[in-house]
């Protein structure tokens, strides 16, 4: 037996190194992309690599970050949530709807105390999440289609409440967290960092987090291990909706207004952040650290392109190309893993 162990150890290690590199492709590639972008913009523009600009970038990615936390749970389960931006918009509008607006705002709203407005807004996104979860797990609608319907429903709720108008006032707590600062640090960065941290702890150190990875890794095997797969998928859909709701409330305060369609860019941004970061579209691999790298890649790209002289229309194309490259790496990394010899 000792000969067997000493005999197999070196080859096992060699295979292990190669396997490690293959496994890490999805983690290394986004990081190298980020490094490349930072170096590139730092050399191309003198205003890019400054402390002020770092604060800008962090502020710019905060709302996306909160949504992306929920989406990370969903994508780790090999599901998708296309309703995140719409739910964010609806929740932001709901919190404004229950807040006293200026007389000039022509909305038939129901002013309530701030805590009640926040409570009702959170309850709304929670309920929306449950409806999504119910459709996917109990009725069996694929998440892609179910959340497409919820996207439309969220847009409908937003439209009904503001009727083409713009609301400005939100409860003071939301206002502080969305647009206030603690010392020199904007509160929204702190909230985003806290959400990412909580997401990471839940995914890495809790039983629920393990179930999320296992359900994404092999749903059938999870079920045959006695894991309540439907409950896990329902839970991640609710988590995603609540994260979106929080992002929506803070976003409304951050932008200074609540109106229809103001989160439209955030759907693509949040999905991109998760996927560019290297979380597998097939579930089971990745996590919050990946999402953080993905958020920075997108944030640095969006911000950096403003610092160099570039056609603003070309920016959109560049973002599309970066996303395509990330998707190719994502699928390729998956294939490398799948092709690994099972000795």
């Amino acid at each position: 037996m000792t000969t067997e162990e000493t005999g197999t150890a070196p080859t096992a290690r060699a295979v292990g190194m190669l396997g490690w590199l293959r496994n890490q492709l999805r983690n290394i590639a986004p990081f190298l992309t980020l490094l490349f972008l930072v170096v590139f913009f730092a050399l191309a523009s003198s205003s890019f690599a400054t402390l002020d600009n770092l604060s800008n970038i962090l502020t710019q990615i905060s709302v996306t970050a909160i949504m992306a936390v929920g989406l990370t749970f969903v994508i780790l389960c090999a599901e998708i949530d296309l309703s995140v931006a719409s739910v964010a918009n609806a929740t932001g509008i709901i919190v404004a709807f229950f807040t006293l607006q200026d007389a000039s705002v022509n909305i038939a709203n129901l002013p309530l105390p701030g805590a009640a407005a926040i409570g009702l807004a959170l309850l709304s996104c929670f309920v929306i999440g449950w409806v999504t979860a119910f459709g996917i797990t109990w009725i069996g609608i694929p998440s892609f289609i179910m959340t497409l319907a919820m996207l439309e429903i969220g847009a409908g709720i937003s439209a009904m409440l503001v009727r083409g108008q713009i609301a400005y006032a939100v409860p003071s707590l939301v206002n502080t967290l969305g647009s206030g600062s603690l010392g020199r640090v904007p509160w929204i960065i702190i909230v985003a960092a806290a959400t990412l941290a909580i997401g990471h702890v839940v995914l890495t150190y809790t039983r629920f987090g393990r179930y999320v990875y296992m359900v994404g890794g092999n749903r059938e095997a999870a079920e045959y291990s006695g894991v309540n797969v439907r409950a896990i998928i329902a839970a991640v859909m609710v988590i995603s909706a609540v994260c979106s709701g929080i992002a929506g409330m803070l976003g409304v305060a951050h932008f200074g207004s609540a109106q229809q369609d103001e989160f439209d860019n955030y759907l693509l941004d949040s999905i991109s952040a998760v996927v560019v970061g290297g979380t597998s579209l097939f579930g089971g691999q990745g996590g919050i650290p990946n999402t953080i790298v993905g958020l920075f890649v997108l944030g640095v790209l969006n911000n950096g392109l403003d610092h160099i002289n570039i056609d603003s229309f070309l920016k959109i194309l560049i973002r599309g190309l970066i996303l395509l490259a990330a998707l190719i790496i994502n699928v390729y990394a998956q294939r490398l893993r799948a092709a690994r010899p099972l000795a």
Partner: protein
Amino acid sequence: MTSSSAVLELANISKVFGGVEALRDVDFALAAGEIHGLIGENGAGKSTLMKIIAGVHAEYEGTMRLGGAVVRFRSARDARDAGIGMVHQELSVVPDLTVAENVFLGAQPTGRLGLVDWRRMRREADDHLRGLGIAVNPGASMGSLPLGLQQLVELSRVLFSGARTIILDEPTSALSPPEVERLFGVLERLRQAGRSIIFISHFLDDVLRIADLVTVLRNGRRVATAAAAEIDKRWVIERMIGSTHDQLEESYTGEIRLESRPDAPLVLDAKGLASGRAYRDVDLQVRAGEILGVYGFMGCGQLELARTLFGKLAADRGTIRIGGRPAHLRSTAAARRAGIAFVPESRRSMLFAHEPIYKNMSISILSRLSRLMLKPTLERRIARERVAGLHIRPPSVESPLGTLSGGNQQKVGLAKWLTFPPKVLVLSEPTRGMDVGAKSDVVRIVRGLRDQGIGILVVSTEPETVLALADRILVMKKGAITHEFASEAVSKDRLLAVA
């Protein structure tokens, strides 16, 4: 098997995969009108040899002659064009198409304008199937046919596309005895028509019955070739295994004395279970410390019954009591909480290939280990105990499961239920596709669990599996329990006689 009469002749074939020798100096010859059985344990090199013949592996040492001329196939298409066809164990039929369309798959006859000539296709398919003695309506949809007929249609497609040499991989593994008879009838006709057939199988009785010659491979080498009429099962097993490791196989063929335990408490008591077309009127009792075997051919309902007992497939009617208490198995999670454990027949649906061993083992007991936060140190410690206790290789709990051999993966699938022993353990095809050594490991582990007082239910389509494990045997036929063997002697013959 003089080389002059050989249509296919392989000489000194060697093949190395990443430093591991899969084949070493293998000679193999196949004559016209010959059925040649190929036998060996898992990993003996059967598949590698067949993949070389079928053009899947283009890189190898040695020479292959087809009709006297040296050939070297670069692809599966090369081999097909040269008249070599293969019927895999997993059929590649298209269930939504008709029989005729399946026979003509990829080569439909076309009339003018390039449109498919349906009438001609049906007529020719009918002639072709009749010629082989296969009675099937060419207009029937493939999916509506029993598996045995689907296999014959696939065989006829391979023949129709011009194959003169046919490789059959485990053709009888999913067939009932009458279906095996029908297949052998067709093979007999092919033999008389001068076609050559390589017949790969674990079912030694089948090989010895149909084959003219038998070649045994062991560890990548050819250890023997002999006329089937002059050898017996024991001779084959001795050469296959290479030592006197055959007590287990022996126990399959001889009589087995069942020792039932009528006084132990009931742990599983199911009454009047029925589920759709899968099974009906199933009454089933498992006592503590007893292994109940449920045997039946593929499609007789026992695999579905096992899924119902783990809350995966809902029963339309009936009651289940676990340890005396009524159980409502609405989900697999509910079944686990009720004290039932399940190991499915396919490793893919039981294990997480890219996760380390310890996570694979802890997944089913996480709720017992922790409420909120994980305890990875405890998980690893438990996994190390299991790995040592079951002799799992490699003995590292961090290795991704996919890097283990099949037998070791199967052990992990069992191990994950052992830390908090269930009341009832349901095993579906626990030794399928295993070599003799791994099988005897599983038998030892399962008997150990029985002796701890767990009630064990083994469902299988292989008589050997049930005979090797069970204390009591139920036979299922077309969805209903038709026979019980208890406190009596039983053999494979008697089991097959009532199935």
